[in-house]
């Protein structure tokens, strides 16, 4: 449980990071909070020759009001995101999900950029990024580009990041008027990765009818699954318990979880339906209050 030997580089600036990545390429890994990479290094699932430490890039540690979006720096720690008044009021889905990542001590160090780049299929922040279709800014010596979250996650622990790129900022849209959101997850023990997780957003018209709805499910495929194609069947109808149950049932039929010796596909379907229903009900309750 000790990592293989590596050479350590403490980056002082983004330019430092880019230069080091250009020199060492695939032989290097960047480390931020180290709450996912650290265990992988310690059990030697990852054995990079060079470790590039991003923790001195304090300029990337922020949560900022950027008008229609909330901008979160790649180095923002989960606990800072979860407890930010700005995030809690303008993007409660993100605050709620960030507050469930790992354990308390893990959330003090784990970062936004790290969680997204790690891309665990059951992780909270990739799910929220896809649910809200966040914009992910990545940068390298060649410049900066923006990727929609739905194009960022490619497969299990695989993203659209090029070898010499790192995430620098993620932008989440503000929750609108008459819009609510909710996050639900199920795991056997606190702090474990979710077996299934669901994120719902519901916007109401002036009354109780659904103007927009989104449901995204994690833990059931290689990447978070957005069920946006279900939405047209459910928009324009009255947002009540029956509507939630119907949407949840449609979600259950739409997902295609793999059979796992410990967790049968049918169990994940059951969880998907239950968590989707709860998330939709809470999202509606929140929308009514806004």
């Amino acid at each position, binding site marked *: *449980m*000790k*990592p*293989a*030997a*590596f*050479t*350590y580089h*403490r980056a002082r600036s983004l330019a430092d990071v880019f230069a080091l990545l250009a020199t060492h390429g695939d032989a290097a890994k960047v480390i931020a909070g*180290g*709450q996912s990479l*650290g*265990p992988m*290094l*310690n*059990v030697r699932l990852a054995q990079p020759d060079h*470790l590039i*430490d991003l*923790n001195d890039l304090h300029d990337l540690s922020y949560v900022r009001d950027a008008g229609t979006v909330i901008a979160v720096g790649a180095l923002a720690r989960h*606990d800072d995101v979860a407890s930010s008044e700005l995030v809690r009021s303008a993007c409660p889905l993100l605050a709620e999900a960030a507050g469930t990542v*790992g*354990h*308390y*001590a*893990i959330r*003090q*160090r784990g970062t936004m950029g790290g969680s997204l780049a790690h891309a665990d299929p059951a992780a909270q922040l990739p799910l929220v990024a896809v649910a809200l279709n966040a914009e992910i800014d990545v940068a390298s010596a060649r410049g900066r580009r923006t990727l929609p979250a739905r194009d960022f996650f490619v497969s299990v622990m695989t993203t659209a990041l090029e070898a010499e790129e790192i995430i620098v900022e993620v932008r989440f849209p503000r929750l609108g008027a008459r819009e609510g959101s909710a996050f639900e997850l199920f795991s056997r*023990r*606190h*702090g474990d990765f979710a077996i299934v997780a669901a994120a719902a957003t519901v916007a109401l018209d002036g009354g109780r009818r659904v103007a927009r709805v989104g449901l995204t499910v994690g833990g059931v495929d290689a990447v978070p699954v957005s069920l946006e194609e279900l939405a047209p069947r459910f928009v324009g109808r009255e947002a009540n318990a029956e509507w939630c149950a119907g949407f949840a049932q449609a979600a259950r039929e739409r997902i295609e979880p793999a059979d796992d010796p410990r967790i049968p596909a049918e169990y994940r379907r059951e969880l998907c339906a239950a968590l989707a229903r709860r998330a939709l009900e809470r999202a509606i309750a929140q929308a009514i209050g806004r």
Partner: protein
Amino acid sequence: MFERVNVKLNVNGQAHELLVEPRKLLSDALREDCRLTGTHVGCEHGVCGACTVLVDGRPARACLIYAVQMEGHAITTIEAIAAQGRLSALQEALHEEHGLQCGFCTPGIVMTFEAFLRKRPDPSEGEIRQTLSGNLCRCTGYHNIVAAIRKAAARMRGEENHAGA
């Protein structure tokens, strides 16, 4: 082949100069190089919480940090908590409520909750249990630990209770 680097650590306000490989875990550096063996090592991959210390006042797994990363940061270990030979309110409550048996997990729990209670002086039992889920204890069943944390929180808020009397 295995290069060593000089690392300056600030542990409990004291300066330490180490010559270690970059891969040396902070938990090992604290125990082997700084000779501070109060920080315990359980799983070495961030699950059990036994090695929890404070980095700049925030709880962190010392096994998920390399000592070389800690230059310029203030590390606090369990040795600093009863530095004057007087138990902290939390330690005292753990003692009174039988919040430990073998004691292996206790330093990690103390470090986690010294920080947590400063930030959340009046947590619900649910919040305490949720936070405690990051520290595995194989002896107590957690019940007495929760009772101790509640008692310590009340005392730290100035609500001295005489429940035990």
